[in-house]
């Protein structure tokens, strides 16, 4: 006799999706911190990408105005690298974002204690609970990452146009900007997954007996 309990992937997706839809506002708050962090990362990267594009146009005046705008041009290779200061700020913003996600997800786990306990009474295994939380975080990460990349990319381009004029549109390296946006979206999703890991483990370790508690 096979004594197995199962939760098909499609059903896990459905449960995660429903949970996000019904608790939309809470998900939105969690996702917003991600959107902002990813947007900032994309903004900085897109700025560097477009500046590199402008620099490769080879015009003297461009190089001067870039230096004036605060870009660090490598005097030997004539390329623009992100400065140590930029990297440090981006790193801090991502760190803050992850801590924010962990906090929000832990709240969400606490809120759903009885629900998780009930699922366990109905026969859910630890890994079902982890899976539902991870899928939720992936959806939030993809959505937040996409919005953030879009927002940051647009802002990055806009600021380039405002600083150097719309004529620079010819020198924008579109494929590099596209790749940057893709990478930052992936970064967002990974951050969301890192953020949910600990809360999901806390949730899955919960005893089914918690479902019986009356006070909450």
């Amino acid at each position: 006799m096979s004594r197995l309990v199962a939760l098909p992937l499609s059903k896990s997706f459905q449960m995660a999706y429903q949970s996000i839809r019904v608790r939309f506002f809470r998900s939105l708050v969690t996702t917003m911190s991600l959107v902002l962090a990813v947007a900032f990362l994309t903004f900085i990267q897109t700025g560097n990408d477009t500046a590199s594009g402008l620099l490769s146009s080879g015009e003297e005046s461009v190089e001067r105005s870039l230096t004036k705008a605060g870009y660090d041009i490598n005097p030997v290779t004539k390329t623009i690298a992100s400065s140590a200061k930029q990297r440090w700020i981006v790193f801090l913003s991502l760190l803050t974002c992850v801590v924010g996600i962990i906090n929000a997800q832990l709240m969400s786990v606490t809120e759903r204690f009885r629900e998780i306990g009930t699922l366990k009474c109905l026969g859910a295994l630890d890994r079902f609970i982890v899976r539902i939380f991870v899928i939720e975080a992936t959806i939030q990460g993809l959505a937040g990452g996409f919005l953030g990349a879009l927002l940051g990319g647009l802002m990055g381009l806009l600021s380039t146009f405002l600083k150097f004029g719309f004529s620079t549109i010819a020198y924008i390296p579109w494929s590099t900007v596209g790749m940057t946006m893709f990478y930052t979206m992936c970064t967002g999703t990974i951050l969301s997954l890192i953020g949910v890991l600990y809360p999901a483990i806390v949730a899955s370790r919960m005893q089914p007996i918690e479902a019986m508690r009356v006070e909450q």
Partner: protein
Amino acid sequence: MSDRNNIVRVSGVTKDFDLGKIVVKVLKGIDLEIEAGKYISIMGPSGSGKSTLFNMIGGLDKPTSGKVFIDEVDIAQLDAYELAWLRCRKIGYIFQTFNLIPVMTALENITIPMTFAGVPADDANKRGMELLSQVGLDGRHSHRPSELSGGQQQRVAVARALANSPSIILADEPTGNLDLTTGEDIIALLKNMSIERGVTVISATHDYKMLNVSDQVIWIRDGRIDKIQERDELDIRTGGLESAH
């Protein structure tokens, strides 16, 4: 082993809670046999160990010493997978606070245990609709718990507990959050299901309405079994209560 078909057997169970400085002995040696198909009430004042015993029978807690057998299987020997399987297939839980999943509709709530048990979605939905109509909730399948009254939520919970045709239904104060008539309806529903399906219903309760339908009442006092009354002894007692009103 006895000839009777015991679905639950508790032998020499004690439970201590270690609170650091003091150890509280909640159960002080319980021996109990519960026959299949009966409607059992566990009664006792708060703090008597009633809930602790109830949780042990449901495989939600492990005894400090002694053994709990469900269908002659020692639950202390089961690993996490087997325990999950037991909760999924053998036991249906009904809670005082209903505990429906708030983000799911009534039908989805009923089908979760079937999904865990590997029942295909179409079959699960079909059976879910049947169960809904058996508990008197036709046409409510797409309602969320927040759109249902307390009594209706508890009916959904009863249907969910029955989803995988378990041998045992564990009801923890099922009428605790319901008014008098709704509570009576739920008790009648549980009793009917017990008779029709031969399910063993075990409920921990304070509710004297439960006594009328119980085949057996187990009174717990101070961590021990005070007395076990069969139905015929009970009738006299409840008669006495009724006439006292």
